[in-house]
């Protein structure tokens, strides 16, 4: 149970530098949190670069990154580990969280609010100054090494009373707010990711900010940076900008015909 559980964690290392353009002081904050062993909460709408940021920080600090996509059926066992049956006997299999603790990785819980409430509680002892992970079924208490770091992300946009973090969970973290980058930076990002000429990227960003103004006015969420990158890639490949915006932005954002129409009008003003 000891040596065989230490994973060959090279697969979790990010080898090439991911492209990440800092939009504020998030890199400094994260590094400080890392040094001080404080867990980090990334807040922000979808597609604004949270995952990319984690990859970048993992590369920057040369620490392996283990990502867990949370869903509403995620059990404690899925995180911590469970017994499997092999050749007439039971074998313990570490879950991703345990693996991260044992190996001193960065563990990234994506969309944490989706996870069941009883599941999120297991991270509590890990996130305060004890930094322990109890493995009840093994009867072990795992002490996290200083390299271990827990981060999680969530999108406060779709907040409903149900999908909210408990205060006792929240108050273990420091929070980095990810909102959309400002227009120049965002155009820069789109330009870099898709290789599309800059002026068109600027117009895409303008379109995105127009859709973001409509949030709550027919749209649940505005166009994300990710959508812009997709659109830019389509345009780069020779699609007509209007067509690309329709496929990659308007029709993606909503099904409501009235709103789609409005989005088409917006596209018409820009392209």
């Amino acid at each position, binding site marked *: 149970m000891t040596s065989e559980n230490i994973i060959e964690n090279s697969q979790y290392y990010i080898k090439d530098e991911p492209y990440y353009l800092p939009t504020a002081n998030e890199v400094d904050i994260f590094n400080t949190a890392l040094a001080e062993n404080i867990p980090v909460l990334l807040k922000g709408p979808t597609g604004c670069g949270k995952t990319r940021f984690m990859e970048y920080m993992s590369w920057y600090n040369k620490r392996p990154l283990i990502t867990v996509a949370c869903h509403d059926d995620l*059990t404690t066992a899925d995180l911590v580990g469970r017994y499997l049956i092999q050749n007439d006997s039971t074998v313990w299999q570490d879950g991703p969280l345990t693996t991260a603790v044992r190996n001193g990785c960065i563990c990234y819980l994506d969309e944490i609010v989706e996870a069941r409430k009883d599941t999120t509680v297991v991270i509590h002892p890990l996130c305060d100054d004890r930094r322990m992970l109890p493995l009840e079924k093994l009867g072990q208490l795992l002490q996290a090494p200083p390299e271990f770091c827990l981060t999680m992300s969530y999108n406060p946009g779709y907040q409903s009373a149900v999908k909210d973090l408990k205060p006792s969970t929240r108050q273990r973290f420091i929070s980095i707010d990810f909102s959309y980058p400002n227009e120049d930076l965002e155009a820069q990002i789109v330009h870099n990711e898709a290789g599309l000429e800059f002026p068109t990227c600027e117009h895409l960003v303008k379109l995105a900010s127009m859709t973001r103004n409509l949030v709550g006015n027919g749209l649940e969420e505005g166009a994300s940076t990710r959508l812009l990158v997709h659109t830019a890639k389509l345009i780069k490949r020779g699609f007509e900008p209007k067509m690309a915006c329709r496929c990659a932005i308007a029709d993606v954002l909503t099904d409501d015909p009235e709103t789609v129409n409005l989005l088409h009008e917006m596209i018409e003003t820009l392209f």
Partner: protein
Amino acid sequence: MGFFSNWKKRFHQSQQSALQRQSREGGSLESRQSGSTGGMSTNELLIRLQLIVGQNSKLPLMEYSTKIAALSHPLQLIIFSELDELIDLSYEHACDFLAVSASVLAEMEQDQYQRWLSDVKLLLAKGEDERAKERIANFVLYTQDADANVVKLSDITYTLEKLVYSLYNQELPIFASDDSNSITTFTNGCELFLPESISYFDDHDDNYRLYKALTFHLLGQLTCSSWQSLDTLKQGIEKYGDEYLSVFAKVESLRINCQIKSEFPGIWRDIELLHTKEDIKYPYDLFDGKENLSVDDTLALVGSLIGTDYQLPELVYQSGFIPSLMGEIRESQKIQRSPLILNPTQDVDDSLLDTTGDPETADRGYLRPVADSSTEHILSNSQPGLWQDSAPNGESINEHTTKHHEKGIYYYKEWDTSLKKYRKDWCRVKEIVEDISSDDIEIENLEALKHAEQRIRKTFDLLINDQKFIRNQSDGDEIDIDAWVSARSNKNKHADDFQNVYIRNNTSTRDVAIMFAVDMSGSTHGWKNTMIKQSTWLLCKTLARLGDQYAVYGFSGSGRSSCHIYPVKSFAESYDKSVKARIFSMKPHQYTRMGVAIRHLSMVLGKATAKTRILFVLTDGRPDDIDSYRGQYGIDDTRLALNEAKALSLKPFVLTFDKEGMDYLPYMLGSSHYQLITDISHLPIQISTIYKQLTT
């Protein structure tokens, strides 16, 4: 006289529904009425007309009666109702109206007719009697503009307003300007005014382009800070007269074009199309390709052009610059600079703002006005109460601060589909808790109910069984020792038994809150009401088994100022005798103003915490209330209320007895959020099965 007043009363009711019916159907007014009951006879009409306009009037009443007699009954009623209204405004005009009424109704389309009449009334209200007279006589003009090339502002207001909002991040309501002015396109910083309709080009699309160009030019006046020129402009006008203003307007429009060209290539393309149509020689070189133009560049250029014979092009999309309004814009921009509501996402090119030396005006940032008082005076002649624009921003500021101090009283907005706007604080809701003694409740049909209760219990028990531990799973929280043992013992027979040796615990996945909104309108009178009461009672009795949160509220009312909500069981209460008493005292009340009931109950349900929150509406017909909450109006308002509920992440579901429900429910709710119940005696069981579907 008894006859007369009686008739008037009857008439007002039927007139409403006649109009409603027309608005739902299409085609010319007359043809739509075919198949309706025959109208009043010439003699009857003559008597009525004499009663209204007076016996000794010199009008050829007989001739009118003959003409009107040819129309169907509902149309005749429309004429009388309008006549009645007009006579209050002006006797003379009412007579004019009478003279043409028969031909008008036979020839005009519904919307044309309404536009014609409302124009006439508007003019009368303004005291422009002559023009009103002209309008009445020239009704033919209204039948002609069915012309496909005309673009009407009312058809595109919604799109333009949203477009402006998405750009400016601030509500700028759009209104049709008074066409008696020479300038029809202008803004005061809080509203945009555009011509009522445009038929300048022979092509519909070009006319629409023109609208867009005009709108963007008005927006340009605001974002390019044209108002900063105001002082110089005034001096110039003093010195050179109106020519200065006209040159300024043209040059400033060229400057705004520069901004449009760089920021909105799509609009610029439209504008250039208009240039070609108009054969305009556009002076591309006027600003020498200079970037970051400011209003000072305009003023400098105006200074050098004034008095020369340089020909500036006449632009079709020339917007109006009115010095007094520019003053208002300046004021509004100052108010908007209040730091409390700074809008940080607005990006404004600093260089465009940084033009005057005044440090205050140079400071950047576009902000929302504190209150939109200016919309009010435009529309306040129609009804009391504030009007509100469809964005939620204004709402959050105002809705919950005003007049909400009365206890148990709530105010809600309502969607006016003809205006495409919300009417703010339009409906007044009162929660009426009925306290009844819990004794002597008679329950009819006890045997049948017992049977139904058992069925419901069975359905629900299945739900409960769903939630316990599930054994023999391939994945789960714990090892299922029993499965493991049995797998071992059958080892040779079924090797894959070993796959399924986990127990999965599902207990906490069930997390439901449901709100039953029960229609208590007068039309549920009789056995429907009995059935509704019994089903509600059975449900309440049995739902406790599931441990789901549930509440029951009834709704009814009459008119927008007395919308009533009858709480039967709140989320906090548990089922007890007084709940039972309240269930059995549910009785039919008045009408069904569904939108406001849904808004109120969504609010109540929104406060419940649960993973699945269901708004279950039980109703017997379409939305319907006095004060013309009917037809498309009621349906559209209800539809929006349901959409708002969805936005609160509630799941609405409508169960209806209305056989015509399929006509409007799909439109109101989208598919699979409604069901029609044909045999009402199945109601209790049907509800429980739907309940099961909704919550699993």
